[in-house]
């Protein structure tokens, strides 16, 4: 590809990390609970705003805020499941989707009441990006990529090596079969919300670090994340991550051919083409 600046590849890796991280948490929840959780965007925003409070209002270092912000969302996701989603467990995926829209209304406006509706920034120095090999690379961006890779790797190990992770994969594949083999799927649901919530919180903090914090930040990030989840095959964590990086890199590289305002279009095109040609996802191991 002539004229493809390596700078775009780096931007693509950064936004791919953000999309992959968000998609990982969402696909884990989607795989076990079997519905699209629109409120997931608000889970991400919540993590970011908790980190913001600790970082800016209490003056703590950002990484402390980030860790607490990420960890808070796990228990919150469990509490919301107990309060809301649990009562709809045997309803259809579409009812749960609409319920999650209602929940997202509630959460987004609670965030607006607590933190205000303006846009905010973390307390990080604004500095000129140093150039390595002709590519401008910000420290924040390195942080995003490294932390995302750590979370992705950690989750991979968790899913492969621990009993809970193996049980999660089994239940994601076939819930009834997993239950038949003695896996307590209700307890598993708690783990899924916990892990999915913490990943959502981390993704939210990273999103805030990449740009700004707004109450709608999570929702606006959802579309490429959904595209990555579906492209990867619902419930397939590896697929979601590959899908996330693919969408991120293609989006940034697309500015060579199309006006940059339209780069979100790439996610939609991949989503539609993926759904129509490979409805089971990239690796054909979808749960349905």
């Amino acid at each position, binding site marked *: 590809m002539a004229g493809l600046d390596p700078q775009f590849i780096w931007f693509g890796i950064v936004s791919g990390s953000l999309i992959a991280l968000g998609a990982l948490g969402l696909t884990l929840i989607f795989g076990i609970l079997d519905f*699209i959780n629109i409120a997931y965007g608000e889970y991400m925003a919540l993590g970011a705003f908790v980190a913001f409070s600790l970082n800016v209002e209490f003056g703590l270092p950002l990484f402390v805020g980030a860790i607490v912000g990420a960890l808070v969302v796990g228990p919150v996701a469990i509490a919301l499941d107990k309060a809301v989603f649990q009562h709809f467990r045997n309803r*259809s995926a579409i*009812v749960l989707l*609409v319920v999650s829209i209602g929940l997202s*209304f509630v959460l*987004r*406006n609670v965030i607006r009441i607590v933190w205000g509706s303006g846009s905010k920034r973390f307390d990080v120095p604004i500095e000129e990006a140093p150039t390595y090999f002709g590519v401008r690379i910000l420290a924040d961006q390195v942080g995003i990529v490294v932390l995302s890779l750590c979370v992705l790797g950690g989750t991979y190990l968790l899913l492969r090596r621990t009993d809970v992770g193996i049980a999660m994969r089994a239940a994601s594949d076939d819930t009834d079969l997993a239950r038949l083999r003695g896996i307590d799927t209700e307890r598993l649901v708690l783990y899924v919300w916990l892990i999915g919530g913490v990943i959502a919180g981390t993704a939210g903090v990273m999103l805030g670090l990449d740009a700004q914090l707004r109450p709608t930040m999570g929702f606006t990030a959802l579309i490429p994340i*959904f595209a990555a989840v*579906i492209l990867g095959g619902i419930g397939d964590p590896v697929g979601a991550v590959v899908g996330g990086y693919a969408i991120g890199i293609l989006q940034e590289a697309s500015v060579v051919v199309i006006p940059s305002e339209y780069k979100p279009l790439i996610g939609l095109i991949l*989503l539609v083409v993926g759904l129509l040609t490979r409805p089971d996802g990239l690796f054909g191991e979808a749960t349905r």
Partner: protein
Amino acid sequence: MGYASLVVTVAIIAGIYSLLAIGMNMHWGDTGLLNFAHAAFFAIGAYTSAILTTTGGEGLLASRVVGFEFPVVVGLVGGSVLAALAGVVIAVTSVRLEGDYLAMVTLSSAEMIRLGIKNEAWLTSGAQGIKNIPRPMADAFPLQLGSVTVGYDLFYLGFLLVIVAASYLAFTRLSESPFGRVLHAIREDEDVPRALGKHTDVFKLKSFGLGAGVAGLAGALWAHFFFAINPSMFLPGLTFTIWAAVIIGGAGNYLGAIAGTLFVVLTRQVTRFIPGDIPMSSELPFIRLIVIGIALIAILYYRPAGLLGDEERLVAGQMEAE
């Protein structure tokens, strides 16, 4: 006097949203299609009508080169037709997808349409929006009828109510016609009408087009009443609000859709009538959205058929995953 004119404005908003809910009910209530692109059809109707009836020109931020200055009625028809076409085009790519996949594709498509409106300033004035959209028959008002003065807003409300009533009658007739029965059959179990030799994809496209068309008409009516439009009026939140209205009112029932709209619009607008000096008044806009969110969840839990939904019919709450 102040309150009276506010009531009329709120009623106009409720009327326009009712048209949106009628379109959504054709998609979800009658056909079981998950359409999350309603805000985009509304936007296409508003922009088409505005472009057809205004003149282009230099702006502060953007210069629009397209503008036709046609009469308002051309705008209303053009807006509806183009929105209907957009509905069919989106549906062609995605109507075979299963429920929640369709939701994702339509939601993304709507955002892309909004992105296009925001960026193609030569056509839409971009983020600056279109202003000075003409009001139909504005010169005739205020009209003196004996001792009573009829203001323009009241006239527009009457005009709108006629359109809402006509749409209501047309769509309920359609829903009870043989065409509507095929849509209901698709909603219950698509294999059955297909086994009877019906081209269900074509029926779904027609349903999508009709519902999108009435949403486009709503958009055009919005633009011609409020003078000015801009891309931030057509966020996905609008789609979700209409969903909440249809579910709360009772999917599958057009009267329910209108009742749900009234509930949602009143909840959102009631704070206009509350004095500004009560505690938490600055948080009220957010609190009323929280109320709508909780109402939506509560209705789905306690009364899945919605306020006026027909228990006999398939309702959102009773459709089990296959």
